[in-house]
């Protein structure tokens, strides 16, 4: 019988935070295992950056070129890797169950760095489950990965900086949307103004002006109050939106790319039972972390956008900061060395945080559709009206606010599918808030179950028998 594989540190997620953390740890001699669900490093922000191509900087901007450098530095270290793999379970101590396509391993480590990144908040509107409707991020990823751009009429719609960035990137590629539908209310700018000064001093400001100018020059921009529905014949034919003046517009399109901001993927931290806080401005659950990115378990760090969406550059520095503290815990550097090493990283992280309050306030996510038939939960196909029926009944028999989400899950299966409530969770939080005045903080985050990603049943036999079942 072989012993249990063991590492000083397991890092989950090979985006900027995870790569930077793993690189710093390994550079000081720590044994590191990197687990990522993709086939190569880079995460989503630096997707395709292993071989970026000669046109990458022109198409995706200068900031994308940080990716190849980070990947190269990561590659120079001796770091064990599991690609196309998911950390499907984790328990204190730590023991991490890592599912690769061909096997399941239970791996012990003293340090666990969760750098799981962010994903796009779903925008549930009638028609959004039709093939041909994707997220704006999906469109961007296809371009980064292998230069795929839509060849049919398409529309970009939603709220958040990404729609403007995508419009700019598509303009660089010569792909022109039928329209860019920007959602949001007219008061958002006024609310964000108090944060404008620090934003203008940040690196984001110049880029933002560039993206907006290009988008307005190259694309018809529709300022809209809400998206009414996507019409289709099995595939989209048109997007119907209501403008800020209350006019209904129909934009013919065979592809629709939706976006509603991004939020931390906090499922692993949640599965560990860590404390999560509801951020009212960012409308998302964020794991509790301190200045060293320490989570609320000994040896746990949450770094990068998975701890709160601050962008790729801040993520990279938060990964380095986490690693410097972890190295103290591993006995490889002193606290004084940590402080000296991390000081410039802390300054850089701070500099890249200064623009966020303006962005977060200006691009607040939009309200979910009030159409009763819209599926909130894609996996289990649970509509808003079905969710409302179950919640109405539950409230009628006195189910407290904090138990509504798990009650709904048990009765309707909403949140029980393979995406583990990543899709329905954010919509449900908004739905409970707007319809029942039950804040997300009171309702709580949907719970996770083992395994965190589907795996082959047979691979359970790979696990040691003496341990108890992982959570």
């Amino acid at each position, binding site marked *: 019988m072989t012993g249990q594989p063991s590492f000083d540190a397991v890092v989950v997620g090979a985006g900027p935070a995870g790569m930077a953390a793993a690189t710093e740890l390994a550079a000081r001699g720590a044994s590191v295992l990197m687990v990522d669900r993709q086939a190569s490093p880079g995460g989503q922000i630096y997707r395709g950056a292993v071989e970026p191509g000669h046109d990458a900087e022109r198409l995706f901007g200068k900031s994308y070129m940080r990716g190849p450098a980070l990947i190269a530095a990561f590659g120079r270290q001796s770091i064990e890797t599991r690609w196309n793999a998911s950390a499907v379970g984790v328990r204190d101590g730590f023991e991490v169950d890592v599912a690769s396509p061909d096997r399941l391993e239970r791996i012990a480590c003293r340090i666990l760095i969760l750098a799981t990144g962010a994903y796009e908040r779903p925008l549930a509107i009638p028609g959004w489950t039709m093939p041909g*409707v994707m997220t704006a991020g999906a469109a961007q990823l296809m371009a980064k990965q292998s230069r*795929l751009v839509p*060849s*049919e009429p398409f529309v970009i719609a939603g709220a958040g900086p990404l729609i403007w960035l995508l419009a700019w990137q598509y303009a660089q590629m010569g792909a022109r949307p039928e329209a860019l539908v920007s959602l949001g209310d007219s008061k958002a700018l006024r609310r964000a103004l108090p944060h404008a000064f620090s934003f203008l001093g940040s690196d984001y400001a110049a880029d933002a002006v560039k993206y907006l100018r290009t988008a307005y020059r190259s694309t018809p921009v529709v300022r809209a109050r809400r998206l009414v529905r996507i019409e289709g014949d099995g595939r989209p034919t048109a997007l119907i939106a209501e403008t800020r003046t209350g006019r209904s517009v129909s934009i013919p399109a065979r592809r629709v790319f939706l976006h509603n901001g991004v939020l931390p993927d906090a499922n692993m931290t949640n599965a560990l039972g860590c404390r999560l806080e509801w951020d009212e401005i960012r409308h998302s659950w964020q794991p509790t972390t301190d200045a060293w990115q320490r989570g609320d378990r000994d040896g746990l760090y949450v770094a990068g956008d998975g701890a709160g969406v601050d962008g790729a550059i801040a993520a990279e520095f938060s990964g380095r900061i986490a690693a410097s503290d972890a190295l103290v815990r591993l006995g490889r550097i002193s606290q004084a060395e940590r402080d000296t090493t991390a000081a410039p990283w802390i300054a850089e992280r701070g500099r890249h945080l200064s623009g966020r309050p303006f962005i977060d306030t200006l691009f607040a996510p939009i309200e979910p559709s009030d159409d009763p038939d819209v599926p909130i939960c894609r996996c289990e196909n649970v509509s808003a009206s079905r969710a409302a029926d179950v919640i109405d009944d539950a409230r009628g028999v006195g189910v407290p606010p904090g138990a509504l989400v798990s009650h709904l899950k048990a009765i309707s299966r909403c949140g029980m599918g393979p995406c583990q409530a990543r899709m329905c969770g954010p919509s449900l939080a908004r739905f409970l808030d707007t319809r029942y005045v039950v804040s997300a903080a009171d309702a709580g985050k949907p719970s996770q179950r083992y395994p965190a990603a589907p795996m*082959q049943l047979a691979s359970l036999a790979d696990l040691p028998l003496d341990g108890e079942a992982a959570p």
Partner: protein
Amino acid sequence: MNQAGFRRLDGSGASVTMTVDGQTVTADTRDTVAGALLAAGIDTWRRNVPSGQPRGPFCMMGVCFECVLTVDGVPERRACMVPVRDGMTIRTGRRDTTP
């Protein structure tokens, strides 16, 4: 096969050949399986279990699980996370999904 919904910007040669439900599909070496199928005009290859509705790739980043299929005999792989490889054998539920 439908008209492809995506074109390749740099028009680079398709140099990988896969078998998708018995049919030959060519792809670019950089593609994920999901990207390759979309570029080949295949928008949907599975149905939502409770409703029976056809679904297509949605997030392309491994979160939504709308693109799962069987790769070289391993089921439930996220097509958006799997790079194409020459000689790859893909099985989907697509026969049910093409109208």
